[in-house]
């Protein structure tokens, strides 16, 4: 456990200090480094649940360095451990300025995320929550597109504003629980704290900005669009999941009664987000923006699942959070490849690309199908569970939500159609198709998508206790 926590920080420092070797080797090393946590997780898969570190870190303030893994943590740890190597694979090593800093920052982020997903002390949770912004900020700021400074600063200010009052809530909980910030003991006391509705609001605001829940998404289009491909993958696949995890960990476990009563309002916002994102995606003339908005729409879909109060919906949301992480990073990966080949992300730039790059076309197609939740793909399982849960509480809303799936098919296939299947214009240069190396990167993602789609029970086995835990907490009160 301590190894799992420290390994990324150690490798991050190593990456910063890498000697002057060829860029390609640096990339290889960084990817190897980033795989350590995944290997660690896999090697002792059955023993992780329940393992913990508990160290009395700052005794005068009653703060413990308490990390603990349960099934919810484990799922998100896997997601982190899978996405980070993929984001590194998306980097074109020959064109990367300051490679040491870049790899160091990504690995640092991995370490912080591992800390965040396992933190079992509210103070630690807050620290990791805020700290993970900094590497992302630098990634956007140093390696992003033409308007990166603006996008990066906007991103950071949104985030800091969202969570500025979190410290207030943490201190308030500290005093109501009698001087402990341990999440277990807070579960008992948090929702009976004075003004606890406000504390709940403060936390939800922070999570809503980071996920982002509609209408707190102002930072999203710029940040996603200006970030380099690797950065966009990190933002969409992991950072948004940090928000989801926050809602699950803090919202559901500490403030379950409010979560339940406020559910309808939040559900409304999430619905608005699903449709707003979908329509925006439809209207885009740029495929990176299109995917960014589709990601926004799908994340809100996940939130719909969270805000419906039953086990099916929660389980679906947790699973869908993982699925979305996988699918969206695959889509941004493809978008990065297209951008490299076309030199732009505009939809009008390339037409009829299928004739020139058939393999890329088929790879994209698989990912698009996964995104629109074709049966047999990973998203299908998650979305069906959410529908199932929602149906138990409201039939009409379920039907309404069904329309969003149609919308997602519309905008995604519109993109495919324009990009790949239009009649190719005669003036187009010859593009190179996917290289073997790139196919090898895409292959594990395709396999993962199909595996969860066709045989989801190993994943569901982990999802189930996590989803039941949230419901059980309310039951005991």
């Amino acid at each position, binding site marked *: 456990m301590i190894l799992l926590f420290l390994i990324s920080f150690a490798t991050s420092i190593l990456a910063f200090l890498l000697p002057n070797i060829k860029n390609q080797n640096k990339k290889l090393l960084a990817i190897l480094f980033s795989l350590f946590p995944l290997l660690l997780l896999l090697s002792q898969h059955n023993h992780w649940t329940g393992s913990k570190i508990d160290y009395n870190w700052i005794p005068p303030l009653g703060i413990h360095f308490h990390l603990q893994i349960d099934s919810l943590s484990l799922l998100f740890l896997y997601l982190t451990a899978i996405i980070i190597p993929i984001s590194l694979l998306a980097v074109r090593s020959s064109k990367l300025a300051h490679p040491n800093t870049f790899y160091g920052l990504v690995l640092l982020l991995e370490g912080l995320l591992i800390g965040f997903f396992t933190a079992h002390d509210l103070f630690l949770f807050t620290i990791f929550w805020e700290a993970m912004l900094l590497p992302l900020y630098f990634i956007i700021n140093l390696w992003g597109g033409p308007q990166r400074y603006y996008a*990066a600063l906007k991103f950071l200010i949104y985030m800091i504003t969202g969570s500025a009052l979190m410290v207030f809530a943490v201190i308030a909980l500290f005093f109501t629980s009698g001087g402990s910030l341990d999440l277990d003991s807070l579960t008992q006391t948090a929702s009976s704290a004075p003004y606890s509705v406000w504390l709940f609001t403060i936390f939800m605001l922070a999570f809503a900005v980071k996920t982002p829940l509609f209408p707190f998404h102002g930072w999203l289009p710029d940040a996603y669009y200006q970030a380099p491909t690797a950065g966009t993958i990190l933002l969409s696949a992991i950072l948004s999941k940090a928000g989801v995890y926050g809602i699950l960990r803090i919202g559901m476990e500490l403030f379950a009664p409010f979560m339940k009563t406020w559910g309808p309002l939040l559900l409304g916002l999430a619905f608005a987000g699903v449709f707003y994102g979908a329509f925006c995606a439809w209207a885009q003339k740029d495929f990176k923006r299109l995917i960014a908005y589709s990601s926004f729409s799908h994340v809100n879909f996940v939130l719909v699942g969270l805000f419906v109060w039953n086990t099916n919906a929660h389980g679906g949301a947790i699973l869908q959070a993982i699925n979305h992480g996988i699918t969206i990073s695959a889509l941004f990966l493809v978008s990065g490849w297209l951008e490299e080949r076309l030199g732009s992300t505009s939809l009008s730039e390339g037409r009829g690309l299928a004739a020139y790059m058939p393999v890329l076309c088929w790879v994209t197609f698989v990912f698009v199908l996964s995104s629109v939740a074709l049966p047999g793909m990973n998203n299908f399982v998650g979305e069906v569970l959410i529908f199932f849960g929602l149906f138990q509480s409201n039939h009409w809303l379920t039907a309404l939500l069904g329309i969003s799936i149609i919308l997602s098919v519309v905008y995604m296939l519109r993109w495919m159609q324009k990009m790949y299947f239009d009649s190719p214009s005669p003036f187009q240069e010859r593009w190179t198709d996917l290289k073997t190396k790139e196919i090898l990167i895409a292959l594990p993602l395709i396999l993962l998508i199909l595996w969860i789609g066709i045989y989801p029970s190993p994943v569901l086995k982990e999802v189930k206790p996590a989803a039941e835990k949230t419901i059980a907490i309310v039951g005991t009160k």
Partner: protein
Amino acid sequence: MNTTLTSVDFAALSPLLIVLTGALLMLLLETFAQVFTRKYAAIIVFTILAIAIWAACCSPTTNHSLLTPWLRFDLLSRLFSVLFLSIGIAITLLSTRFFQKFQASQGEYYFLLLSSLFGLILVAQSADFLTLFLGIETLSIALYVMCGYMKKWEISHEASIKYFITGAIAAAFLLYGIALIYGAIGTTSFDHLYSKFYGLTTSSDIILFLSGITLVTIGLSFKAAIVPFHTWAPDVYCGAPTPVTAFMAVGTKAGAFIAFIRVFAVALPQFDPFWSRGISILAMITLVYANIVALRQVQLRRFFAYSGISHAGFLLIPLAAGTADSIQALVFYIVVYTIATLGAFTVLAFLDHRQEGVTLNDLKGLYRRSPLLSLLFTLCLLTLAGIPPTAGFFAKFYLLKTAFQVKYYLLVIVALLTTIIAAYYYLRMVALMFSDITTENYSPIRSWPAAIVGILSIVSIVVLSIYPTILLNLINFSNK
């Protein structure tokens, strides 16, 4: 009365005596061996201060009846002596290259620096209003001269005069306040303040005492640059030579707050709810005003004046709270602020190349020119902004916790909201450093002494961020 001082008593006084002797030595050396001092002044001062730190760490305490009415030899004074002497060392290291570059003579500068350190230590050890005033004046008079030390800089003239006039007014306030307190209770000793105040019966005496306290508060607020008594700070910081600005930003600030601690947190803990409320209002005004004005600053010495004012607002929070652990929180914050500000000024010392000092434009593209400097500056700015996981976050957390404990919810919320503004302007500077537009291509100076300060501040920020308990245990005043 026993009037003979033994060697133990002298040992207890040794930090003060060493600094004083050192100061006089520097003055003599400058008079008789100018060429020698120009070369070796910094090394000599460094040695003197190092010895003084050692003396401050292991000096025994004494309860000689001639000393204890005037000076305290407790943990707080020892800690602050060490802090001030370390600041002195850092300023010395930053100064050497600066004065070589701008070709100003050095001997008397170090005399002034040592004198002001003497004043600061005296403030930290004071057990009576008279020693407190003596310390503050020794500090201030030396600083007036230091501000105008670059005789050919026009902005320095303005700064020095402005500082002198406002400083004199502040001293008048302070002294008048002390006089009123003496008039009310018949003593200037801190030990008797609390009991005498509660022994007051006639309402005229109480009014006299409270007016005195108010005037003392105003006098100290001038020194700490708290809104609305801050107006001197931006001009003076802007006009003074960079090392002197650094010294004012950390030394004077810490000095003013140790005075606050001595008079209010130690001698008069929570003596009057009205005073606490007033301080909390001052803190809110300071936080809001300083943070908003800091947004518009482009000259960095001026910027750090406003940043310093806003941190003074933060430092008022535990004073207003006055809980059991508020001194610990205050001291922790001062130490973190000192380290980070010194680190930031180290960067400015490296970049400084003209009278106007460093501006925001000079930061553009610093990362390409000097990655290490930009790393140091980033770390310091993040600490000042209080962004986790830096030690600045713990410091702010701890302060706000004390305020929360006494239910100053509004204060906590205002403080947190102003940190958003603060985060914006600190991070904007970080963003500038990492941009790739380079305006002009002068390279930073090379200076080993200043580099040492930089490295030390990086190391201490990292250590404090990972394991703040070290410092917290050191400043645990509750069970001495």
